[in-house]
């Protein structure tokens, strides 16, 4: 397939002032006049800026994206993700390097930029569409679909300042989603809106990706990245740290954050939880009880929750949820240890360990969401979504639930079932 986006040694520098603000380049006339008096010889040259420091938000970034690819861009805050999208959307110029884009670009870096609160929904659709680069005829053609997608039919002639934030976001996303660009650049816009609408947006973007169009997508949600994107690029301090299949890069990212994605620990001061109990660490271990973020599909997986009970005498119920990369909850496991059922726990440090049997989980990235409930009255003590994550892999040895099948195999679980053949020609009719 042909190239859609080619980035060659892209670099972007920002001047950072002493206060750490990005707008050091902004100055008042007074500063300039003062500088002119202070350094008459330098007046016509570049202003001396001893108080600023150069930060490379992007530093020698190169990659190629083909038409029809859906690529996720991940990385910590300040890794350069947004700067990269801004450069590719032509909002800001690179300091060095070059990017070539083949095709019409639509970028959605923030939901609702350009909406005017005094204008009605209808008027804003036209205004926002024009701002995003749509032609009037395109907007007219897609108008009904946009309104239906945003679910604001009844309020289409109401000024958007009277909209709820949900309606506002829905309308804004709907306009952008119908932009029909060949290359769609999307920054973390799905962090807003209710869950149901987020799903709808994700589906819409998936449609765009399957349409043979190119999507570049920045997100902090690994499940959204692995679900939407076939490929991911991991940025760190402005450089490309990893580039490859999204599930691999996603797990590399999770590992780069805390050494490995399979364990996470908290200092007492920052430990999640309240007066009763606090979570101190979570980890996943393989059959040999080694901490690992890659698990053999045939082997059991152990999940350890380490917590501190600060207020003794309560009935506690440690538990966790397991989610797959689509964000679907596969199951919830409650602590069944007979030793501590219906028995108040004294203060102190505990580790509760659960064994997930082998040949149950499906291949892919799974995350653990540890929780603690104190009973009667029931109260949630802590709850940490996506605390740890691990990859379940099948080595295709023929003794897993996939047998000799090497193709794609769906499903949220993959139990090993016992199969018999009560009837076959070999034995004759029963």
């Amino acid at each position, binding site marked *: 397939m042909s190239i859609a986006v080619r980035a060659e040694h892209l670099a972007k520098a920002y001047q950072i002032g002493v206060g750490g603000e990005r707008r050091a380049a*902004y100055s008042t006339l007074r500063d300039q006049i003062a500088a002119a008096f202070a350094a008459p010889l330098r007046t016509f040259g570049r202003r001396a800026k001893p108080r600023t420091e150069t930060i490379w938000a992007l530093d020698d970034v190169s990659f190629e994206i083909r038409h029809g690819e859906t690529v996720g861009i991940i990385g910590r805050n300040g890794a350069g993700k947004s700067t990269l999208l801004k450069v*590719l959307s032509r*909002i800001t110029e690179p300091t060095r390097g070059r990017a*070539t*884009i*083949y095709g019409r670009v639509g970028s959605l870096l923030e939901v609702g930029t350009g909406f005017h609160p005094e204008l009605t929904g209808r008027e804003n659709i036209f205004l926002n569409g024009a701002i995003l680069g749509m032609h009037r005829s395109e907007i007219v053609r897609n108008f009904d679909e946009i309104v239906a997608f945003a679910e604001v039919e009844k309020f289409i002639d109401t000024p958007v300042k009277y909209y709820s934030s949900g309606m506002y976001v829905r309308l804004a996303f709907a306009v952008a989603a119908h932009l029909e660009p060949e290359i769609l650049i999307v920054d973390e816009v799905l962090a807003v809106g209710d869950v149901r609408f987020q799903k709808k947006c994700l589906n819409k973007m998936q449609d765009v990706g399957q349409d043979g169009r190119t999507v570049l997508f920045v997100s902090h949600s690994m499940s959204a990245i692995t679900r939407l994107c076939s490929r991911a690029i991991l940025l760190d301090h402005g450089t490309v740290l990893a580039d490859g299949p999204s599930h691999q890069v996603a797990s590399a990212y999770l590992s780069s954050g805390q050494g490995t994605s399979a364990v996470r620990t908290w200092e007492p001061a920052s430990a999640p939880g309240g007066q009763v109990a606090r979570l101190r660490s979570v980890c996943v271990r393989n059959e040999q009880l080694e901490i690992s973020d890659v698990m053999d599909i045939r082997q059991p997986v152990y999940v350890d929750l380490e917590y501190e009970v600060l207020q003794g005498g309560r009935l506690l119920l440690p538990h966790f949820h397991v989610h797959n990369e689509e964000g679907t909850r596969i199951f919830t496991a409650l602590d069944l240890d007979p030793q501590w059922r219906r028995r108040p726990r004294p203060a102190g440090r505990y580790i509760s360990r659960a064994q997930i049997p082998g040949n149950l989980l499906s291949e892919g990235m799974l995350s653990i969401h540890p929780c603690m409930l104190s009973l009667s009255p029931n109260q949630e003590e802590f709850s940490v979504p996506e605390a740890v994550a691990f990859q379940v892999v099948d080595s295709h040895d023929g003794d897993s639930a996939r047998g000799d099948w090497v193709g794609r195999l769906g499903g949220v679980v993959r139990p090993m079932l016992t199969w018999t053949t009560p009837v076959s020609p070999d034995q004759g009719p029963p």
Partner: protein
Amino acid sequence: MSIAETQHKRLVEADERPERRAIVIQPTSGWAGLGLRGLWEFRELLYFLVWRDVKVRYKQTVLGASWAILQPLLTMVVFNVFFHRLAKVPSEGDIPYEIFSYAGLLPWQYFSTAVASSSNSLLNSAALIRKVYFPRISVPVASALGGLVDFCFAFLVLLGMMVWFRVVPTPAILLLPIFMLLAIATVVGIGLWLSALSVQYRDVRYIVPFLVQFWLFATPVVYPSSLISEPWRTIYGLNPMVGVVEGFRWALLGTNPPSAAIFVSALVTATLLLTGMLFFQRTERKFADIL
């Protein structure tokens, strides 16, 4: 056809699409042209930005669009009382001072409001500029054009006044659009300069009101330009609005035609516009980083 086949077919089709237009993104240095191409490509955006400005301007005001008429009308009354009645500033010829000053106020009010809104337009659109790509030049140009709608309303009042005061326009009225174009070009030129400067120097926001105020007195709005004597007349012509206001009065009220200084005015305007575009395009690339 199996899914794989469909997929393949689509891939092949995608490959056979006509040559895509390649956009090259790289650091530019030096002068970057006038930006007319971008302005033309995004002409629909320009239209919608003007439309938005007009739509929003009088929202949630009791009097609504009547303000477009009331502003110049009330200013005319104030000028009439203070400059004509108290300060004894004369009109030109036998034209009533009311219509004399109103005819000057028309282009002047367009000029002053459009310069102010155009100069501040980039700062007011900062959120948009930081998040969406479009030719930045659309913003100050749209602000400069947005004032024309008010101008048209106020112009209707002028026509009414001409009937009331029985002023017959001269054939020169056909030249009116040319004077208006001169005014628009001046506004765009100044707007481009000041809005581009305002991104870097917020001082512009405070300079503009003074600038406009001084400019009013350097323009024959409240007084006839015949009050200015010759050695100064030529320098006076450096102010493009002199030619515009004189031209308006000549075309509508049949006063003295603008002097040859109008050509100096046109030259000044052309220079402002051209340098404004060049300067704007040159600084444009830094807007998103500084705003």
